[in-house]
Every structure is written in C-alpha cells, then in structure tokens.
C-alpha cells in the first residue's frame, strides 16, 4: 500500500473516501456570489459618473453563460429584486431587466447552439449595453444626452470586465463542488 499514489483516491474536488459534496454549497454558491456582487458597488463613492460596472448583473450572466444549466430561467427575477434594494434604481427595474436578459440568453443559445468563450463574450457584449441603456431609461430621471455620454465608460468597462468575471465564475464553479461533508 505504501507505493500507491496518495492522490489516487481523490479527484479535483478532494478525497473520494468518506467525503461528499455539500448540497447547500453546490446550489447556493451561484446565488450567494451574485447577491454579494450586487451589494459590492455600494462601497465605491462615485459622485460624478456611474463608473462601476453592474457587478451583480455581470455575475448573473457570467454564471448563465459559463455554466449553463445551473441557474433556472426564472432566477433573474428574485436576484434582480434583491439587486433593486441596493442599486438605487426604482424597485422592479432589475427584476424586469434581469428576467428579460435570462430569456434573451436562452433565445441566443437556441439560435447559435455552439459553445465557445468568444461566443459567450459576444452574447455578453450584446446584452450589457442594452441592459445599461434600458436601466438608464428606467432610472426615474429624465434621460438626456449628457447622461448618455456619461454611460459610455461604464459600458466599455463592463464588456472588458466580462472575461475576468468568467474566470472568477469558473473558479467558484470548481470550488463549489469541493467534498467537505463527512459521511458516516
């Protein structure tokens, strides 16, 4: 037995003997990470421009695109409602737009059923500007040209941030299946 590789009884998620995945963690990590990302922009005090990308929304479409099949189609509604509590938008804005975004991803995936990172980025790059523009229209303020110009840096930043979010989601996806629950 001494010559056996100590890693031979474990896989990427840890030892397979006497250990199992936690259901709570495996199902909860996507929701928790999105909710945490919704609260995160609060910390930055931005008085002039909306400069921080909508992190909660980025995480939502990150999970949906990088790990399809995990979030149900309707997940946009409850998560969006939570985001509305902190985003400063009128209540219901994210609940509507996040639901629509989830349906839109579904539609795009039936149109283009291949999978690649470039396609995920394309989908995100399509949805993010539309989301930010719609959020501006529904913000309760009167939309104007300066507001539109002020939105440009945020749109560019959000699209550029998507690959990082995808990497982070992939990292969380590996961690969420760690076997840490003891059996027996």
């Amino acid at each position, binding site marked *: 037995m001494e010559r056996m590789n100590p890693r031979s009884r474990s896989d990427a998620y840890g030892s397979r003997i006497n250990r199992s995945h936690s259901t709570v963690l495996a199902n909860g990590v996507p929701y928790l990470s999105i909710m945490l990302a919704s609260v995160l922009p*609060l910390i930055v*005090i931005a008085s002039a421009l909306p400069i*921080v990308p909508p992190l909660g929304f980025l995480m939502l479409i990150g999970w949906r695109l990088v790990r399809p099949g995990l979030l149900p189609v309707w997940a946009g509604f409850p998560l969006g409602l939570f985001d509305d*509590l902190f985003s400063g*938008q*009128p209540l219901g804005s994210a609940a*509507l737009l996040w639901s629509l975004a989830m*349906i839109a991803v579904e539609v795009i995936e039936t149109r283009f059923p291949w999978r690649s990172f470039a396609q995920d980025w394309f989908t995100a790059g399509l949805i993010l500007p539309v989301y930010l523009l719609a959020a501006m229209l529904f913000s309760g303020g009167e939309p104007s040209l*300066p*507001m539109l110009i002020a939105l440009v840096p945020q749109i560019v930043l959000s699209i550029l941030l998507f690959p990082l979010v995808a990497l982070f989601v992939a990292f969380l996806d590996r961690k969420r299946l760690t076997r840490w629950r003891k059996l027996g």
Partner: protein
Amino acid sequence: MAPTGQRRSSYSRRAQYGLFTGYIAAGAGALVGAILLGLSLWQPQFLSGLRGEANDAVAPATRTVATGRTESKSFYQAVRGYLRAGSQNAQLKREVEIARIRLKEAQAVEQENRRLKSLLSLQNTDTKPVATARLIGATSASTRRFAYLGAGAEDGVRVGMPVRSPRGVVGRILEVGDRSSRVLLLTDSESVLPVRRAQDEVVAFAEGRGDGLIRIRLINLGINPIEKGDLFVTSGAGGYYQPGIAVAIATEITDDGALARIVTDPAAADFVSVLPIFEPAALRGSRTPIERELGE
C-alpha cells in the same frame, strides 16, 4: 459542439415539464417586474421601507469600509506631506502672512456685522447640525446619483434635511432608515437647488446633469452676467437650505447660464453633517395648494 438538430431537452417527461414551467415562471417574473417598476416610477416612495431596512442591514459592513477608506487616505496624505515638506514650508509661510492680514480684515467685518445685526435685532443664525456621520456608500453602478449616510431616524434625521460637508452642500435626505439614510446628491439629474452668485444677487437654479456637472440656469433672462470662476451659494429660497453655503463654481458659460463644478466632492468628504430644514414654515406654505389658500 455542433447542434443536435432536435429541440427536445431530454426524453424525461418530468424534465420537459420542468423546463416549460421555468419559461412560464421567467415570463411571469418579467411581468411582475414590469408592474413593480411602473408602480415605483409612478410613486417613488413605493416600498421604500424595504429598501431602508436592506440598507440598514449592510450598513455595518459598508461603514467599516468607509472608515478604512478615509483613514488610508489620510495616511497617503501624511506620506506625501513628508516628501514635499521643504517647498511646502516656504509656500505656507508666505500664505500665513497674507492670511494674518485677511484675518484682521475679517475681524473688522465681523465686528461691523455684529453692530449692523444688533441694529436690525436679528438673531445669530448659526444652527447646530442634527447629526454628523460618514457617507458609507453610493449607487456607483446606477445612472442615479445617491449616497448612503451612516445616520438614520434614530439619530433624528428626517426626509428633506440638507446635508453638508465643511466645504459646501452635498445633497438632501431622500429616504430614512433606522440607522442609515439615502442622500440625493447635487449631481443627480433630479436635483434642483435655488442658488445665487456669492458676490451679488444674481439668482439661478443649480440642476444636476447626471454626468458630474451642474447646470446653472438663470431665473432672470437677459444679458448673462456670469463669468468663469464665479462661486454660487445657496440662496435660502425654497426653505430647505440655509443661505450662504457654497454649491458650485462656474467653469463654462452657456446661453442661459453656465456649467459648473460642485465644490464638495462626496468621495473626498470625510464626515458630513445633517442640518435641520431651514424654514419649515416656508415649506408648508409652498406645499399648500393655491386654491385652498385663496378659499380660506
């Protein structure tokens, strides 16, 4: 992976129904979201209690971060101060000399002011702030410019109270939670504030544009008297703000006024104070419909 050519997700009836129900639920979610959005655009205070409680819940975390931010900022300033000590010292000596002269002038003015005020038998209008707190957060991802303040109804903060830093106006309280409250910043596109030019009585409105600048709109149209670098202060009209608090500095002249930059950047403000509403009586008067006023 190439498409399989069939739309069915699986052969399991249960999975197919589950997926279908998911689509229905997503559509229903979007619909409910649209109704909620309509309601909250129509009545901005809709479910604001829920929002207040949510922000009270995260306030301890954001407060800690805000404390860390302001303290690390002063640390950087201390380091920078050491690096530039020599040249700064010489410059400060010159400035102090000038300041001494100005101080004497100010004392004279103050004395004269006191004499004139006693002639008019006016009270000293220095008001004590209701609460002093840090700005603990802001809606940095939304188009609207709101900030969150680490003081709420328990500290005596009420809706409508002005918020100021030592430099000038920051904004106005919009919603109040128990231990935190939401501030409408000057740069928000819905913020309007009556102002006047600091050196004379040119009155105007300062409106946020939503891109960090303030639009100064003159009330009396005609020849535009504003020049670059003019400071605008609150005029006290409207009853919310004390008169004479700095608001913005004109940077660009337009047809009906100017574009201006705010004097107080909330991101640079350490502590801010909440002031009582300047003239509640004037506010009540402005809210009374004119028909009722005439009828009585």
